[in-house]
């Protein structure tokens, strides 16, 4: 998610960690890098400026200079500030406790409102609530059909009206919901620009007619500097209750999260992480801040790992890592463990430093199956000792696994890189991590 930003901080703090003591110049230099990283991550210019000022005030001075590990202290200060901006803890959506509770979605064109409406309907259904989707977008071609298809796919009714204006549609839908014991009404409004006066008035009208319990701004995580303008306007006109950040499954650095939070003060409540209707997660500010700082999303990772990983195997692995005896065989075992944990992309992104180490190495599940086949076609000796894999062995493995020799070479190269990475990572210590808790123990 915040992958590249993590990488930048990785670089900065690696040098900081190395330096025994920090001078003021040292701090300023590294904060310059922090500034650059944040700007490249699309955090708004103004927000960056204030952020850096605060961090500088806190870090320049005796406090830091006297401390034993100044680098770590700066990491901590930057981290704390980021957490502060992003919000201290995960904030849940308004409870579905009325008949009906109403969620209203709004945002710019194409940000992911309709998809999110479908996701929220699915989530409500899974909680045994009765949702109703309301098609309040009468402008976009086939918008109603789109919502109907999504509704059908999760078995949720879609309320729509021909030749009616959105505020009336929403109001009618509310009445309908009251009569029909609907628990949750989800209003899917049309995408609009925050400077489109007419359409912003329309939203105000909808809001005053139905009085939603949750008014969410749906914003694209790839948004640039403009995030502050749109968030400010939507918030000013509608008094938002929260934000949903979408398309977080990509490689956007997601600085918009920080910008939006900073200008609206609204909690970011949801993280949309894919096109499928089940791709919805609560937004965890603290984890996000950790990820930004290159500490990895350790909490999520540990949680997922604990569900999936055989602790004994992990302990054994840790032993091997310590001795630098990680083989292709172990790699294969790890792949099996990881597969139990969920989509690879999201797992890898959570591991500190891994984002960078794996850059350029395509991670896709199909590729994983290919890799499995290749390792399966090796002899135990080859798996333990890949150096012995010469030309003719490669041809044999390629044949056996239905791959090209090129792919075998790629795997061996990637594995070598991985071994190196593990070696590098084991140099960093992360406090408070349960030992042996996950595959890439460091």
């Amino acid at each position, binding site marked *: 998610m915040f992958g590249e930003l993590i990488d930048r901080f990785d670089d900065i703090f690696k040098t900081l960690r190395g330096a025994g003591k920090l001078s003021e110049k040292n701090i300023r230099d590294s904060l310059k890098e922090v500034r650059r990283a944040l700007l490249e991550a699309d955090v708004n210019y103004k927000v960056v400026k204030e952020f850096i000022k605060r961090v500088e005030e806190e870090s320049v001075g005796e406090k830091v200079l006297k401390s034993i590990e100044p680098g770590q202290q700066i990491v901590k200060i930057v981290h704390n500030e980021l957490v502060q901006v992003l919000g201290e803890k995960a904030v849940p959506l308004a409870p579905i406790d009325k008949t009906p509770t109403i969620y209203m979605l709004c945002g710019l064109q*194409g940000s*992911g409102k309709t998809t999110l409406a479908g996701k929220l309907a699915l989530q409500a259904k899974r909680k045994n609530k009765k949702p109703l989707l309301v098609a309040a977008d009468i402008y976009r071609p086939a918008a109603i059909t789109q919502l109907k298809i999504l509704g059908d796919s999760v078995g949720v009714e879609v309320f729509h009206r021909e030749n009616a204006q959105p505020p009336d549609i929403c109001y009618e839908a509310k009445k309908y919901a009251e009569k029909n014991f609907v628990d949750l009404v989800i209003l899917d409004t049309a995408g609009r620009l925050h400077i489109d006066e007419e359409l912003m008035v329309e939203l105000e009208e909808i809001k005053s007619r139905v009085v939603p319990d949750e008014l969410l701004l749906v914003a694209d995580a790839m948004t640039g500097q403009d995030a502050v303008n749109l968030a400010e306007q939507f918030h000013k006109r509608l008094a938002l209750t929260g934000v949903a950040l979408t398309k977080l499954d990509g490689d956007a650095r997601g600085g918009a999260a920080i910008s939006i939070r900073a200008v609206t003060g609204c909690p970011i409540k949801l993280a949309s992480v894919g096109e499928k209707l089940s791709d919805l997660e609560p937004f965890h500010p603290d984890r996000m801040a950790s990820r930004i700082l290159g500490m990895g999303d350790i909490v999520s990772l540990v949680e997922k790992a604990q569900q999936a990983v055989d602790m004994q195997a992990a302990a054994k692995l840790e032993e091997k890592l310590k001795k630098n005896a990680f083989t292709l065989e172990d790699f294969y075992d790890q792949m099996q463990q990881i597969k139990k944990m969920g989509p690879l992309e999201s797992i890898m992104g959570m591991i500190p430093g891994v984002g960078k180490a794996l850059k350029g190495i395509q991670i896709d599940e199909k590729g994983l199956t290919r890799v499995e086949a290749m390792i399966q076609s090796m002899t135990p000796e080859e798996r333990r000792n890949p150096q012995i894999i010469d030309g003719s062995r490669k041809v044999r493995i390629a044949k056996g696994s239905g791959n090209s020799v090129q792919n075998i070479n790629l795997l061996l190269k990637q594995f070598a890189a991985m071994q190196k990475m593990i070696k590098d990572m084991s140099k960093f210590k992360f406090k408070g991590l349960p030992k042996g808790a996950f595959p890439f123990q460091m």
Partner: protein
Amino acid sequence: MFSKLKQLKESLSKTRDNLLGKIGRLISGRKIDDALIDEIEEVLLKADVGVKATQKIIDLLHRQASESGLADEDSVLRLLKNEIAGILTRKPSSKSETNNSRPLVWLITGVNGTGKTTTVGKLAHYLKAQGKEVMIAACDTFRAAAVDQLAIWAERSGVHFMRAQSGADPASVAFDAATSAKNKNIDYLLVDTAGRLHTKANLMEELRKIRRVTEKVIPPEQIKATLVIDGTTGQNALSQVRIFTETVGCDSLVITKLDGTARGGIIIAIAEELSVPVDFIGIGEKIDDLQPFDPREFVEALFEN
């Protein structure tokens, strides 16, 4: 009828302080010094021009200021305009236009929700108005109602439409469309594809397949891949251009949603770092809210007060 430039200016300046227009007001009547240059940097960064391209422009200003001296605001403005126009025009304009063979296939790609389908609709209208025979193909068989959405656009512009069943293999739709376009003497075949994040290897592979299959019917030099980028996108657009270029190719760009308050500076960042020309910009949701991109005009509009 508006002049093109006027329409562009209007759409780009729905809010008063649009894009670099601000710079004009910023420097008017001021002494050219470091403080001013810092403010110009701020405007550029806030316009999504990006750290790298901004740095380059700012370095130039500093150099000029210390060497020859930037005496007055006019010289600063001129320098900025030239520099930015220079960045934008460095790249050759896109291919295909010069190719006389038919049909020309326009593969429209991009991440989710950038405005691909809408752009296909607008493009069909634009080309038809020039007397071209146009067909559009619905290769987004994934997103709910994507085909219905495109069908409405095909109807609006009155062009041929290659419909697809939801869930059909997009490559086979592309193949059918290409074959049909060839037989019907179509000038332009516009292929709408599903939105996909560039980081998803399997989806990018699907796009490659669409291209491969099309090349079985249409010679590669008649196929052009155009990446549609949301104008509100920040620096991630660079990653999009890079990876789409590597995987399916990216001959040109369309930047949409420039009718908002996003400043479109990402165009400058992209031009500075990657050699892909911009063909069109999208400035609204209506069928004629599409404009050919003219770097000079764009810069003029940007600096307009």
